[in-house]
Each structure stands twice: as C-alpha cells, then as structure tokens.
C-alpha cells in the first residue's frame, strides 16, 4: 500500500489483492498481475503512486467464475426472498463496520477528498439496504394475477435470469459497482463481475465483505484485469444468461452485444449515469428478470353444467 511507514518505524503489512471466485480468494490462474496506481484530479492519466498489484484475470478465470456462479444459482435463486434480503442487509452491516477502509480505498482509487469518498461509501452502504428491502417486494410489484377469459387462472411471477456478467462502471469504482451488482443478486441471479479496470481495489475488497456476510460462495464472483479481455469470453459464454455492459465503451459494448446474441443473452446497454448517488429505479432489477406465467384450470366445483 502507499501508506508510508509509521513514525515509530513499524513497517505496515500490505494486502495481497486477490480475485473472489466461488467463495474463495484465488490468484489469477495466469499468475499475472498489473499495477494499480492512485488517481487524482491532477493526474487523470493514471500516473499516480503505486497502490497494489491486482490480479490480471484470464479467460480461464472468467470460465471458472461462470462455473462457480452457475453452481450457486440453484441455491441462491431458490432461497426465500426474505432470506436474500437478510443476506443483503448483512452486507450493509459488514460494510458499515469497515467503512473507514473503503473511504480510504475509494479516495485513493478515484482521487476524491476524504469527505467525498465518504459520501460515496455511505451511499453504497445505503444502496445495499435499499435493495435488501426489495427482495421480497419486487415480485409483488412486477408480478400478478391475470384475469383470463375462461375457466382458468394464471399468475405471472418474476424469476431471475441466471448467471449475469456485469461490467462494473469504470469511473465509480465502488458506489457504481454496488449499484450494478446489488440489483442483480437481490432477485436471485448470480454474478460474475469485472471490476473497474483502473480502480479495481474497492471491488476486490468487497469480496472480503461478501465472504463474511452469509452471501453463499459463487453468488458473486469478482474479477480484475483488462475489461475487454475478460468480457469477450463472458459475452460469448453459452452458460451466461445476461450481461450488463455498464463498464463498456461504445465500441466494446457493440462488440459484446453482437457476441451476446449467440445464445440470446439479455443485454443491458450502457447508459449515461451522471450521479450514482441518485435514487435508482427498478430497471436494473427488471433487466435480469424473466416473467413466468403458470396457468391452472379452475372451472366449477362440480359436474354442474353443460356447455350446450
């Protein structure tokens, strides 16, 4: 870390940042890392101080993450909505306890003042709370019963799409990340997240919180590295059901959307977000929800009648 040795001469302990896949913290199977440096307004080109070496995830890491996410999908989507809400709320609790760490990491990653970084972290924590409350309400808001013209009854309910690849926003390394990740998993999807390429450290640290927040292993998998390099195999992967292109530029987004057509992934195109602290709508949840309509005959209680 960039923290200087303390005044009494004690050497601080650096953290080795690792990927978060299947509930474990592996290094990249490639064995490669890349340098992550501090950002500041004056130094937007990314020539800041060295912060850490982040894993440079490979195609194989992406593949492993998809396997982990698929494995976790049955349990997570099958958990009760109430349970998912409890787990998401637990994430907020754990983050609150490590607030200072995230404020520091976000300030360094995004070149923000401590106060502004704290605003971002607080908003991110509050966002987990907001989505925690949504888990057992979204079905009531977007589902419902349909008045069929005939002796039938049916119910339309939302169901998670499956494994969602998420390209986290490049600029907002933490609040942006939480804002795209929480809605994906709130509804029961599992996620493979590509962290902000130049500021991946808050995302990688989030893995540590998720691992201790009752989020089952594999529900969230976090990769760092070159976004375009990792995203390409994810967009083409046939066991990925959807992709959020928030962190892709226009050219990459088009390329990935074309690749995603191969198995008709649900694609959420990048949309300009001026202010990640603004109240989100439910679109980031509904983008990764399927509607299932189940029909049942009703008819009469008895053999009462004739139709002619």
């Amino acid at each position: 870390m960039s923290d200087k040795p303390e005044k009494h001469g004690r050497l601080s302990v650096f953290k080795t940042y690792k990927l978060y896949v299947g509930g474990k913290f592996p290094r990249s199977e490639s064995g490669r890392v890349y340098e992550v440096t501090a950002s500041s307004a004056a130094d937007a080109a990314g020539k800041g101080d060295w912060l850490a070496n982040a894993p440079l995830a490979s195609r194989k890491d992406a593949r492993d993450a998809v396997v982990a996410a698929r494995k976790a999908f049955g349990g997570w989507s099958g958990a009760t909505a109430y349970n998912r809400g409890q787990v998401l709320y637990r994430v907020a609790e754990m983050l609150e306890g490590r607030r200072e760490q995230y404020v520091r990491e976000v300030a360094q990653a995004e070149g923000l003042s401590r106060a502004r970084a704290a605003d971002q972290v607080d908003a991110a924590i509050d966002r987990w709370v907001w989505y925690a409350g949504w888990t057992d309400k979204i079905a009531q808001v977007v589902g419902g019963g349909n008045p069929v013209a005939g002796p039938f009854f049916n119910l339309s309910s939302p169901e998670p799409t499956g494994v969602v690849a998420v390209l986290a926003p490049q600029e907002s390394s933490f609040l942006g990340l939480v804002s795209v990740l929480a809605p994906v998993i709130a509804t029961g999807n599992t996620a493979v997240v590509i962290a902000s390429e130049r500021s991946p450290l808050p995302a990688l640290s989030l893995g540590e919180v998720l691992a201790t927040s009752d989020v089952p292993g594999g529900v969230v998998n976090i990769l760092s590295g070159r976004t375009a390099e990792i995203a390409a195999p994810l967009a083409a992967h046939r066991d990925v059901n959807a992709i959020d292109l928030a962190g892709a530029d226009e050219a990459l987004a088009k390329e990935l959307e074309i690749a995603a057509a191969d198995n008709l992934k649900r694609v959420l195109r990048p949309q300009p977000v001026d202010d990640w602290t603004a109240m989100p709508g439910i679109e980031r949840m509904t983008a990764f929800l399927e509607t299932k309509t189940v029909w049942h005959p009703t008819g009469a209680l008895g053999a009462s009648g004739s139709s002619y």
Partner: protein
Amino acid sequence: MPTTAPHALSDVTASDATLRRFLHGLPGVDTVGLEARAASLGTRSIKTTAKAYAIDLAISMVDLTTLEGADTPGKVRALGAKAVRPDPSDRTAPSTAAVCVYPDMVAAAKEAVAGSGVKVASVATAFPAGRAPLAVKLADVREAVAAGADEIDMVIDRGAFLAGNYRKVYDEITAVKEACGTSARLKVIFETGELSTYDNIRRASWLGMLAGADFIKTSTGKVAVNATPANTLLMLEAVRDFRAQTGVQIGVKPAGGIRTSKDALKFLVLVNETAGEDWLDNHWFRFGASSLLNDLLMQRQKLATGRYSGPDYVTVD
C-alpha cells in the same frame, strides 16, 4: 352373496376398503378439460346422408319415457303406440328402443307394444330417491320383472355412495341384478347431478360395471342437472376402458334434458369418437327422453321434404 363380477377385477370388490382403494385409484378427472373436450366434439358438423342416418339411429335409441304420478294405462297405451310407430305419416320411421314406465304400468306397456320388438323398461328400487329398505326395492324389481319388464332401470343409493359405503351400493346392485334374473337387462342410474363431481361419476361408473350393470345411466330426469355432454362423455370413457380391461361391453344411457335433435346428434358424436362405433346401436346406447322424439321426427320430415315441420305434424301423446 356371490360376486357377479365376471372378470379379473372381481377381487377389488371384497370390501369397502378394497373398493375404495380401487375406485380412488382411478385416474382423476379435470373438470375444465373434460367439459372442453365435450364442447369441442359438439362443434362437429353433420350433414346430409350422415344426418339422416343419425336421426334414424337416434330415434331407434330412444327409451320413450313417462314417469309421472298422473300416469294411467291410457297414457301408457298412447306412449306405446307412439314408440312402435313414431310417425304415422311415414312408416319408414323406425320404432324407438323401448318405453320406460313405473313398475305398475309395465303390464299396460307390455300390451301396448306387444309383437313390435319395442322393449318395456321399468324404473324400480324406489325410483327416483331410492330411499327404501332393500327388501322393498327388490320386491319392486321382482314385480316389474314378473309383469314382463325387459329392462330394469334401478337407482343407486346415492347417500351410501356419498358416505363412502361403496360395498353397500355394490351389494344392492348385485342383489337387483339377481332379481332381474336372466330375462331383464339392468340399467344402473347414478343420479350424476347428486354425485356432483366428475371423479364421483367415474367411480360410480366403475362400481356399477363391477357389480354387473348392463347399462350405466346418468340420471332420473327428476333433479336439476341430468344428462350433460360432459358426464356422458365421462361414462363413455368408462365403458370403453372397462371393455379394454375386462372384455365386457356395457351400455350407456344419458337421460333427462336432451330435447333437440341437435343435442342428440352431438351425443352420437360423443359415442362415435369416444367409445367407438361398436356402441352405435340401441343395444348399447339409449336416450332417456320424451320430448326429444318429436323433435327428431320433425327433423326427419324436414330432411325428407326440404320444408321445416311444425308441432301439428307430429303426434302429441
């Protein structure tokens, strides 16, 4: 009492428990699906030669019925004459299958149809409620048979059925069957409107067939819901399946509520497409009806003349 079930299924009739196990193990009936199928068959269109054939077939399947407190020998004689020669203006019109009367009218009916081939059917077993001691019911049957009834239309004990006393219902049917002797065919009326559910109708059908019914019949005509396309379809499925399993063919008689030729033809379509053409014969399928006959005759006249007929051109009895 020895069981009369003449087939491999006889062991299921040993007790209430074995009967329950068997009857409740029959496939369930989905109300909506059954009624939709019946309605869909009702949209079959029958034209020209097929229609003429179907109308004559329907006439030949009618159990021309009078079951009133006010029945008299005179009324029954008139009914018999009509059954033998339904259309006095056209001798090619076939006779009906039978006349159906109360036991005390059997003798009069027998006389009225003598030598015609038209059968005499008698309701019995304390028709229509069936609420009488077994001895009384059996006496009712024996009287009718002694008076010459060719067919007995008994009612089951719906109370016993609904209470789950399947063995009691079974025993009554076998006792009545025995009372019918070898000369009378037995029609077993379930009063489907009182059994209320299609699952019950399927179970009653199998119970009746196991007990030796020659015909299974929907209704007495005395309650709110009588024969419907759906309950008749269901009973046709039962006789079809029973024959497939045992080799024994059983007849079906929808009764009550079938008033028009159009309705009757729809029932024949149900027979044709469910049980099959083996049942398209008055030995195996009957209509329990009274006003239906005149409508069939008017349709028959229309086909013959090309003009619509009217009630003044058919006989009122």
